[in-house]
Every structure is written in structure tokens, then in C-alpha cells.
């Protein structure tokens, strides 16, 4: 299915995206290791170019399939990587700290690498998947997961910052822990708000497709587990004696749950969502 020229264009854009993300990651690493500001700047541009190519690839696929490209493992994986890129760019721009790039690009690259391993065949949608609510549900999931990806990277920096107190590079390029904690919190807040929206729109879709808005399907249950983990994170931040390190650990664990909800549940636990 799909116009062969468009299929080829999508493929070319997809590989260009991968190459640009890889270049961005390499540049961020070198910048961070050698303290070369210019390389850091270049890495940012490579990420932006990768994001533009990625947007192009998704748009072409959308045109090819005649719908939003959000319906199978490949489409969701590549959109997931797109969401992390988008959130990474937003956070890089808002908080102006380049070192974040060195931690977030590997996550983006891993997710898009996973997408590259999936079948790219465009298939028609089964009736239950033809729903506007479902389209909203999955689009918002991309933003939520993207924001959690950023919080994972920032929390990892927080946890490493403790050990790297002596390193001049860390002192120069990575903000103090208090600020890292706040940035991670902003990312989790964005992700949590969107995840709540994802769960609610998913429930609305389930109600119209299956007749029940909550049926403890494994994917639903894991989305709820992820939501609870981030709720714990939010509470740890306001509890005396627990904020900081414990909260950062929860933010990191939360992202592992996000990945499990997305990949693990489909492959390890069967359920209504197994086709997604």
C-alpha cells in the first residue's frame, strides 16, 4: 500500500534522521568531553536538523497511509523518538543548558534504533482503531513520553552530579542540583499532565470501542502504574527528607516503566492492546 515514491522518500528521510541524531549525539559527547562550546552549538543544530527530517518522515508516512502515523510498533516508536526530540529541544531552549543534549540524545537514538528494527509495512486500520479519540490518545502519549524522557535524562544528571562534584566540566556545564531538580520536576509535570490526558482519552476510546472505559487490560494497568510512580515522585518532592535523591530515583524508574508500558507489555503480556 502507498505510493512507491513516497515510501522511498519516507525511508530516505528516516535514515537521514537517524544519521543526524547520531551526529548530534557524537557532537554532544565530544563537546562535553573536550569542553568545546562550538561543538555543543553544532550538536544543537544537528539535533534540530534531525528533528526537521524526522517531522518530514512522519508527515510523508501520514500522507502515504492517509492517517496519523501512530498505529503500529514502528509508527509509535518513531513518533515516540520524535516526542522526546521535541521535548528535548523545548527544554534545551527554555533552560539553556547544553549538557542536557549529551544525556538525552542517546535516549532518542535508542528509541529510533528500536523503530528501525520494526516492520515498516503500512497496514489498514482495523475498525476499533478508527477513532478520533484514539488519535488524540496516542498523540498526547508521544508528548507525555517525550517529557518523561527528558526528566529521565535530567534525573540521571542529578544523580551523577553528586559524584561529579570535583569535575570542572560538570561544574561549568551542568547546573547545580537544585536547578536540575526543578527542571526534572517541570518535565515530569508536563509528562504527568499529558499522561493523565492520555489515560482519560484512552478510557473514552475504550468506552466507545469496547463498552467499558476501564477493564484492567495490561496496557491500561501499566499506564496506571507509571502514573502512580510519577505521583509518588511528586509527593516525594514535597515531603521533607525525601526530595532530591529519592525523587530523582523515582523519576528514573518512572521512565523505565514508560518503556515497559510501551514495549514490554506488547511483547510480554497479551491483551487488547497487543496489536498497537
Amino acid at each position, binding site marked *: 500500500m502507498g505510493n512507491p515514491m513516497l515510501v522511498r522518500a519516507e525511508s530516505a528521510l528516516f535514515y537521514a534522521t537517524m544519521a543526524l541524531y547520531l551526529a548530534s549525539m557524537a557532537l554532544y559527547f565530544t563537546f562535553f568531553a573536550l569542553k568545546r562550546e562550538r561543538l555543543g552549538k553544532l550538536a544543537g543544530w544537528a539535533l534540530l536538523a534531525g528533528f526537521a527530517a524526522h517531522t518530514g518522515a512522519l508527515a510523508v508516512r501520514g500522507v502515504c497511509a492517509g492517517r496519523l502515523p501512530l498505529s503500529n510498533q514502528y509508527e509509535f516508536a518513531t513518533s515516540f523518538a520524535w516526542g522526546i526530540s521535541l521535548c528535548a529541544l523545548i527544554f534545551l531552549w527554555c533552560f539553556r543548558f547544553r549538557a542536557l543534549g549529551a544525556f538525552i540524545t542517546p535516549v532518542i537514538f535508542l528509541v529510533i534504533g528500536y523503530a528501525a528494527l520494526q516492520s515498516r509495512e503500512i497496514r489498514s486500520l482495523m*475498525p476499533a482503531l478508527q477513532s478520533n479519540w484514539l488519535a488524540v490518545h496516542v498523540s498526547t502519549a508521544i508528548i507525555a513520553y517525550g517529557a518523561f524522557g527528558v526528566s529521565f535524562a535530567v534525573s540521571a544528571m542529578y544523580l551523577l552530579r553528586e559524584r561529579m562534584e570535583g569535575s570542572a566540566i560538570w561544574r561549568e556545564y551542568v547546573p547545580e542540583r537544585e536547578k536540575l531538580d526543578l*527542571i526534572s520536576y517541570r518535565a515530569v509535570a508536563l509528562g504527568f499532565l499529558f499522561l493523565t490526558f492520555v489515560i482519560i482519552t484512552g478510557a473514552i476510546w475504550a468506552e466507545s470501542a469496547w463498552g467499558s472505559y476501564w477493564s484492567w487490560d495490561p496496557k491500561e494497568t501499566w499506564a496506571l502504574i507509571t502514573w502512580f510512580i510519577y505521583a509518588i515522585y511528586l509527593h516525594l518532592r514535597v515531603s521533607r527528607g525525601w526530595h532530591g535523591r529519592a525523587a530523582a530515583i523515582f523519576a528514573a524508574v518512572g521512565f523505565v516503566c514508560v518503556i515497559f508500558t510501551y514495549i514490554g507489555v506488547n511483547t510480554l503480556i497479551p491483551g487488547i492492546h497487543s496489536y498497537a
Partner: protein
Amino acid sequence: MRKVRRAARALFSMRAALAILLLLILACVAGSVIPQGEIAAYYESAYPGRAGWLILLLGLDDVFHCAWFAILTAFLCANLLGCNLLRFPALIRRTRTGFTPERCLSRWDGEAQVETAGAPDALFRRMGFGRVRALRDGEGRECRYAVRNRIGAWGAWLTHLGMLIVILGFALGQMFAVSYSVYGVPGQTKAVGDTGYELTIDDFEVGLRDDETVEQYTARLTLTDTRSGNRTSGEASVNHPLKRFGMKLYQNSTGWAADVRVWRGEELTQQAVLCAGEQLAVEDMEGLVLAFNAFYPDYATDASGAPYTASSRLNNPAYLYTLYYQGRVLGMNALPAGERITVEDCSIAFDAPRSYTLIQIKRDPFTWLAGVGGGVLLLALFVAFYLRTEELWAVRREDGSWAVAGRSAKGGALFQEKLKRLAKQTGRPKE
């Protein structure tokens, strides 16, 4: 009394909340990893040693409907409610009288601070404060004060309220929702459980795309209230349930059905519509049961002889059946269309294969409540995260420069940074 109060504090504490959330997470993990709702023998054989026994003992075979899960959820609700009740008076006080210039103007230590050479009105605007009050303090100095997003203090409180409403709506739904299913082929009318309604399947259509994948399943239905005789018709398709008489009718699934005829000699003695998966007791021959196992519209067999259907078109229809007599298997075969199964002078044939539809009929009078809860939850989270309460105040010093200070709930170092950056950008920070 003191003990009661202490117990209440402990129960409604953040620590208790975290413990409950952790336990809920464990329950959810168990409920998603262990297959739910199987028979006891399954767990005993699938899980080695005492694991199966433990699963059954702890109710992990049906976690989400077992007593301890309900108790845990009740604890969560009590905790949410208690926490909200305990904090309510303080929140009211804070919103009413917590944000005043007097409080701020006497408070400078530990707050984010900058100095500007001239009046800081532009800085106030850039920081997002629309309404700025100009006033004088006790010493007659010129001052500015602004506050924004006072509602932000209510974010967490409203989030907890939203959560409570969702759980209440869901729990009431679990208690009072009813669900029935009716399946059949066009032309059939069946009772909808004990509701007094009857459902007629007027038509059922499987819409195919050019590549033979299914685009949509559509059923035309008539619902009749047998008590009043009122009837109403409409269409239900996947993702588009039909709403009638306070019920929702869902096009849930489909399968194959066929007419089955039984003859004694040449005399037709029995006739029925059988859906794949159903059985028919042959009336004329006691103990003889026909099971219609599956239907293949385009029957073929693979290399190992296993049957499959080559396409979804009716090119070479075949009916897979099993025949039982007195509980024992008498025969099993794939019967081509037009042929008969013969047992003594009795013969049976399948005919007119067509799709049947399974319609699910649901009534949950509390879905709206869970929906309201969800809406409150979303709005509340927005309030909690994005309407951060912030205050900014300034005093004019004797030398004409201004000292500006501010505070932001949850803004911390980032707020301070923004204040410094904008003070620089608005022009005249004091040298």
C-alpha cells in the same frame, strides 16, 4: 481523644499515602503479570510448588476484584478525603489573607532579589504580573506589590478531589452497571436478559476494503420495550455504539453462523440457526449432539493437513463439526457445503453460511461521574503545575533605586534566575 487524633494524622499522612500507592503498584503489577480469572486448577498446574497455592490464597488470580484491593482503594479514598479536609481551613486562610503587601514588604531575607535603577513597573509586566498595586509602607516609602495565580495553591487539593470523584464514579459503576450480550443473524429477535427489552437484528454488514481487510462492522438493530410496546431502531458499528432507552448497544464481535437441518429419512424434523462454537441437541435421536466448531469460507489444508481459510470469500465453504453420542465423540470432520452427515436413518446438513453479530448491551449510570472526575483532575493538574502562585514586591530606596524581591511556589532557583535575567533585560538594573 489524643490517640484518635494521632491515629487520624498517621492515617492521613503523606507517608501512609506513599505506602498505599506503593501497595497499589504491587497489586497492579501482580494483576498484569498473572493471568486473571482462570480456574483454580490452572494456577496449581501453571505455577510450581506453593506459588499457585499462594496466588489463590492472596486472591492474586483476580486482584482487581478481591477484598484487599477494595480495602486498599478505600484506604486511599479515606486518605485523600482526610488529607483534603485537614488542609481545607489552612488553604482558605491562605487564599484569603496569605497574600498581602504587608506580609511581603517586611520579608526580604531568603527571597529572590534584584535591584533596579528606576521604577520596576516594566519588570513587573515582563514577569507576568498584570495588576500592580502602588502603595506606601509604614515608613512612607513608595512600594509596589503584585500577586498572581492565587488559585495555584488549590491545585493539589483539587487534584485529590478529582481523584476521589473518579474512584467514586468507577466504584458505583462496578456496583450498579449491568451488561448483557445478544448474538444472532439478521431476522432473529432475542430477549435482552431480564430487562424486558427485546433486540431484533434487522441487518448485519461486514464492509470490506479493496484489499479484503475489514473496514467496518455495522448492525441495524431494533430495540423493543415488551411492556409498553415502544420500539426504536438504529445502527451500531465499532466505535459508534447506539444509544437507546438509557442503554448503549455495542457492535462487539462477529463470527460465522449457518442453518442446520435434520431429516429422518426424507422428512425434515428439525431446523435451527447455529453460530460457530454452539451445539445442537438432535431432538429425534436422544443423546446425539452436534457441535459446530468452525466455518471456513474458502477451505484449504496446509502441508500438515491442518485446515485454514484461503480467503474470506465463499469460494469453497466447509463446516467443521464434531458429533457426540451419549457424551462420546462419534465423528469429527470438515463437511463441504451440500453434503450431509448420516447417523443411521438421520441426516444433518449445514446451509446458508452468514455472519452473525454479537451485540453488547450496557448500562452504567455513573460513567458521567467518572468523566467529571477526570475533567476535574485534568484542570486541577494544570492549576497545580502551571498556575504557580507568585508574588513580587518592591521598595524605593532613599537613593532612588528600587529593591525588588519575589517568591514563587515551586519556582525556586528558576524563578530567581528569571527575575535576574528580566531585570537585566528591562534595562536599568542598578550597577
